């Protein structure tokens, strides 16, 4: 078991490292390809002419004159050990590990921006994930047990519709109904869970529903097909032949096996969504990681894009690692 976890952990670290190298290289390539001075992407304000001594000084200060590996090491050591940000004019800003640099456009440390946005994304993704898992698995299981019945047809028809409806459609409709028409949720501005749980819940409930709606539909279809396959297995027949109650057969013997592959997909979905719920955040005016990255892209704010990318990659790798460990516990056949 320990060996299994160790191997997976080493694998996870390697993947994150590769992602950091690749993103770093891509963002190095951007200034080259667009013939723009990297200082511009870094600070956003370059009042100096190309070739002027002031610009060269800035390049030197930010290390753009160093060889590539040295620049990468500078970036990596910032993440690992922290660094001090200075533009040579203002007072130097200490930036402790993990330091993703400084956004001169927003005049804040990238780490601070991410820390502010991450709870929003986490609240949104995890809350929605719980909703869609419960909803999807329930609908899928019920459909699978009575294939071709009215319940099955309603469930599967509904999920087909839900899969086809984008969030920028369901989101505004929900807002229209609950906020504007019924007036049940007059103020949906975000408040952190730690400060005002009630307001946090009010602000999250509609985003959760609209995000979960889409995924619940996918999970319902997935659960249904897995469950139907599992219920045809020989060990289900054995369970029935023992005289077990139908509920025990379905839940203990059927669902446990049918959900195993769903765990994998669930982990990947949650990991991916943490950095990419852009549409939901935009529709509901939430300042999460997705919103942060869109804003950074629009402003060509390289340090922020780089930081969000690495954080999103870490979230995905971490989710996968957790899934692997959980999987090893669920399925005793997985070699440990």
């Amino acid at each position, binding site marked *: 078991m320990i060996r299994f976890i160790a191997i997976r952990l080493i694998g996870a670290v390697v993947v994150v490292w590769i992602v950091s190298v690749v993103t770093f290289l891509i963002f190095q390539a951007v200034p080259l390809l667009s013939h723009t001075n990297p200082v511009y992407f870094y600070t956003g304000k370059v009042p100096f002419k190309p070739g002027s001594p002031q610009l060269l000084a800035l390049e030197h200060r930010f290390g753009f004159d160093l060889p590539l590996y040295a620049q990468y090491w500078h970036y990596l050591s910032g993440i690992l050990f922290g660094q001090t940000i200075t533009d040579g004019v203002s007072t130097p800003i200490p930036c402790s590990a993990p330091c993703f640099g400084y956004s001169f456009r927003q005049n804040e440390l990238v780490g601070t921006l991410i820390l502010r946005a991450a709870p929003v994304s986490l609240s949104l993704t995890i809350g929605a994930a719980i909703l869609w898992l419960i909803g999807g698995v329930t609908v899928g299981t019920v459909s699978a047990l009575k294939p071709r019945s009215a319940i099955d047809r309603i469930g599967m028809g509904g999920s087909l519709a839900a899969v086809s409806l984008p969030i920028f459609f369901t989101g505004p409709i929900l807002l229209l109904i609950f906020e504007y028409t019924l007036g049940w949720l007059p103020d949906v501005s975000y408040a952190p869970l730690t400060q005002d749980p009630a307001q946090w819940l009010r602000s999250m409930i509609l985003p959760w529903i609209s995000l979960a709606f889409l995924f619940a539909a996918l999970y319902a279809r997935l659960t249904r097909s897995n469950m139907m396959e599992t219920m045809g*297995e*020989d*060990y289900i*027949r*054995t369970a*029935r032949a*023992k*005289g077990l*109650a139908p509920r025990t057969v379905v839940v203990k013997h059927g669902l446990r096996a049918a959900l195993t592959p769903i765990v994998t997909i669930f982990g990947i979905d949650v990991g991916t969504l943490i950095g990419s719920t852009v549409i939901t955040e935009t529709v509901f005016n939430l300042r999460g990681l997705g919103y942060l990255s869109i804003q950074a892209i629009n402003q060509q704010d390289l340090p922020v894009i780089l930081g969000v990318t690495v954080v999103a990659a870490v979230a995905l790798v971490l989710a996968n690692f957790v899934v692997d460990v959980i999987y090893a516990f669920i*399925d005793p056949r997985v070699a440990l």
Partner: protein
Amino acid sequence: MTSVASDPRAASSRPGGPFLSVEDLRVHFPTDDGLVKSVDGVSFEVDRGQILGIVGESGSGKSVTAQALLGLHKGSKARITGHIWLDGVDLVPASENDMREVRGSEIAMIFQDPLSSLHPFYTIGDQISEAYRVHNKVSARDARKRSVEMLEKVGIPNASRRYDDYPHQFSGGMRQRAMIAMALICEPKLLIADEPTTALDVTVQAQILQLIKDMRNELNSAVILITHDLGVVAETCDQVLVMYGGQCVEKGPVEELFDKPEMPYTWGLLSSMPRMDRVRQTRLTPIPGSPPSLIQVPKGCVFNPRCRFSDRVEGDRCFTVHPDLLPTSPRHEVRCHIDPEERRQILLTEIRPNL
């Protein structure tokens, strides 16, 4: 049985008679292509302490018959008619709830592939204990104790340690032993073994068949052994029922059926088998063609498209009239239009010399 017998909804009861008596059992499945008559009018009896072999090729309806005895088709689209008298109570009209009481405690079943028949995520011990606790209100510890006893009884070494192993950690033979322990833990009066040794090696098969016979002696259970292997039948069974196309085509005591088989299909089975105990003389005599579709069962005798002897019957009765299962000796019944005297003649002159 009390639970079923005392239940007013459980239909008629009929005291006396053999322990298990199946009368005119039919299992039909409506499908998009038509009605699949998997089992079409099968009758047989088994007493406690007896082993009945049901022989047939794939699609002959032997496994469906077994599952119908356990009521496993309840809740599906299958149409089941006829009677299954178990200890005087008819199981065909019984509700799913009543059948649940019967499964595992009165009738237990073991299956062909012990690996796929055991849940991969639960330990062997958990699955056996579970079977015990469904029908007995006992603590987890008592169930464990009983399961370990049962594992020891079926010959699993270090049973208390292996209780916590998962199915994939057992060998094929050990898994089937565990399945038998699970089936017998509530001391059922009827054990149905559906191809219990087909997936196993021949030396392991010998062990498992011996175990089934030993357990039969210990519990005085009735046993139904479903197999395609006539050798297994000869080794293990007291009575044999030969199935073809969802119907019983011949049945009788095992010695008589092997000594004086009378149905051309049984002849075909015997002469198409290579014999390990014979010096090779001639080619095998296969049955031409392939088994019938269960949707469009041949008119007349179900075996007529593959039968070499239909010209021994006057006119075209083999192709127009469905033959009845008729006694040829007190306990031996055959479904064939050929005159019994002529059948015996064919056996002596044309079949036996080539066996």
